[in-house]
């Protein structure tokens, strides 16, 4: 608990915080999640310094995301790819350094708000110029291959983990900044969209999922390639059934946050499992082990997002409008 916030704790609230534990300063869940986000940004930044990112292959990868997108979306992507191609070292160094600064800024308490705000802007820019809006406007978007784009989840997390409190009591961490109704709506939209993508014609063909998973083998270590091969074989000619099962799971996850806490926890566990399966089998850990991964992809981010919705007993000392908490600090809250 921050000292500033602690000073404003009413006796009743202090009691709710749990006596000695509260006064000692229990770990703040939101701050821990912010640090996890900072860690992923740092991972992104360091991955951006890899050899692959300074080669033409990186600009070709960016340019490839223009394919299938409407012209108004594709043109800026093509411009960006050309820029990266012509000034690979300079532009990529800037990209990596920006992400490094974002990571440090989020981890450094006095700058957490500034860094989170900047990360939203940066993430949205990368989502468009670097990921082609996660291909959501094309027919090839799939939750298994990273739709709706990993980087947009960074932005969503930055919003949900914004260090302010709108209500005295929030049922889960993500509700603290935007309120429970808005947080639940955002969750619903995200996971329903994933369910929709899972059922797109291009993803429910007999060999669609098989091809997607098998395509991740290239360049992976032997053991991971073998896992991918076996997973691909498991869904061979089962594309429709697998898509339906996946879509049903995603819908259950989507509505889970509206259920009572015990049931919500069950659906969040399901979300964590689905995210892990997507990350391991569909995304091969963001292809980081090939030396060509720009980020850990969406699976890890979906898992982190699920944790922000985990039901917690959160007690805020005072409404944010009357007693704003210091940036990035614990805001006089604790969660269990």
């Amino acid at each position: 608990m921050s000292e500033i916030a602690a000073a404003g704790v009413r006796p009743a609230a202090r009691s709710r915080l749990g006596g000695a534990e509260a006064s000692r300063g229990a770990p703040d869940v939101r701050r821990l999640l912010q640090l996890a986000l900072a860690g992923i940004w740092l991972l992104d930044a360091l991955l951006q310094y890899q050899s692959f990112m300074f080669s033409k292959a990186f600009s070709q990868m960016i340019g490839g995301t223009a394919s299938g997108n409407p012209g108004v979306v594709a043109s800026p992507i093509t411009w960006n790819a050309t820029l990266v191609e012509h000034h690979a070292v300079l532009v990529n160094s800037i990209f990596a350094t920006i992400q490094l600064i974002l990571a440090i800024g989020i981890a450094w308490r006095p700058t957490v708000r500034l860094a989170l705000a900047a990360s939203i802007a940066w993430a949205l820019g990368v989502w468009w110029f670097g990921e082609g809006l996660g291909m959501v406007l094309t027919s090839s978007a799939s939750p298994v291959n990273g739709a709706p784009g990993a980087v947009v989840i960074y932005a969503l997390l930055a919003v949900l983990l914004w260090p302010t409190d709108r209500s005295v009591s929030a049922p889960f961490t993500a509700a603290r900044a935007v309120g429970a109704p808005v947080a639940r709506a955002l969750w619903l939209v995200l996971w329903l969209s994933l369910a929709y993508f899972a059922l797109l014609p291009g993803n429910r063909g007999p060999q669609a999922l098989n091809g997607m998973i098998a395509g991740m083998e290239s360049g992976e270590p032997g053991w991971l390639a073998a896992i991918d091969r076996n997973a691909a074989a498991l869904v061979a000619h089962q594309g429709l059934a697998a898509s339906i099962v996946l879509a049903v799971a995603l819908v259950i996850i989507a509505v889970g946050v509206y259920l009572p806490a015990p049931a919500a926890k069950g659906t969040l566990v399901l979300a964590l499992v689905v995210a892990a399966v997507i990350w391991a089998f569909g995304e091969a850990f963001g292809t980081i082990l090939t030396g060509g991964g720009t980020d850990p992809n969406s699976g890890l981010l979906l898992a982190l997002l699920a944790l922000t919705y985990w039901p917690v007993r959160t007690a805020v000392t005072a409404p944010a409008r009357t007693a704003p908490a210091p940036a990035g600090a614990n805001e006089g809250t604790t969660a269990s």
Partner: protein
Amino acid sequence: MTPSWILDIFAALMLVVAAVSAGRLVAAQPWRQRAALADIDVAHLLMAIAMAGMLAPSLQTLPNGAWEVIFGVLTAWFAYRVVRDAQVSGVRALAGGHCAPHLIHAAAMLYMFLALTAPAAHGSGMSGMGGAAGTMGTLSLPFLAFIFALALIGYSIWDLDQLSGPGASGHYSLAVARVAPAGAVLAGVGAGAGPGAAAVSEPAGSAVVTEPVTASQAQPVGAGGPASGTGRGILAPWVATSSRIAMGVTMAFMLLILI
């Protein structure tokens, strides 16, 4: 290939860390105190020199085999200290104790030297990495490199958080060290006790065990110089923590670009 000037920047950063660590050792004068050990700063110094040599061929000092022995010993030493911490503070010290990050650092260094494969391994050290040979080595068992990188990133981010404010967990504090009798405080205590740590050492002559203390337990000491180990100037805890952050990030960077 990652441009050599980026590698040079990281190498320069490591030289700064090496210089700071050496400065801390000199300022603390651990050789004048019977029980004093400066394992943290010695480890920082060695790791920084080794990494600078890996990043920039012109900065290479010892052959790979010597570094493997050195980091093997350091890994064993910090493993011993982590176990000791766990016996004193409970199993949580295995990951969250003040020696755990140093164990990860030492083990990651050992792994890098052991796992580096051709073409860089054919030359002296990791000279290919700097771009002189036009090719880079790669690490065998890349998943292990990824795991090490994640751990290093995690500790670095945690250190940054703790350095910039009071510990969310209340486990660490930026207060200066409470001094134990007879100059038992170590040169590396600040770093060893975690980010911006307050630390308490056992009396002189005993085995070296430093434990993080909470803010309420810490008793800031207003006076004292290197001899008393109160952590002012270059001996301030934040200096060691900053060094550890720089090394952790650089090490994670090296692991990831060598995958």
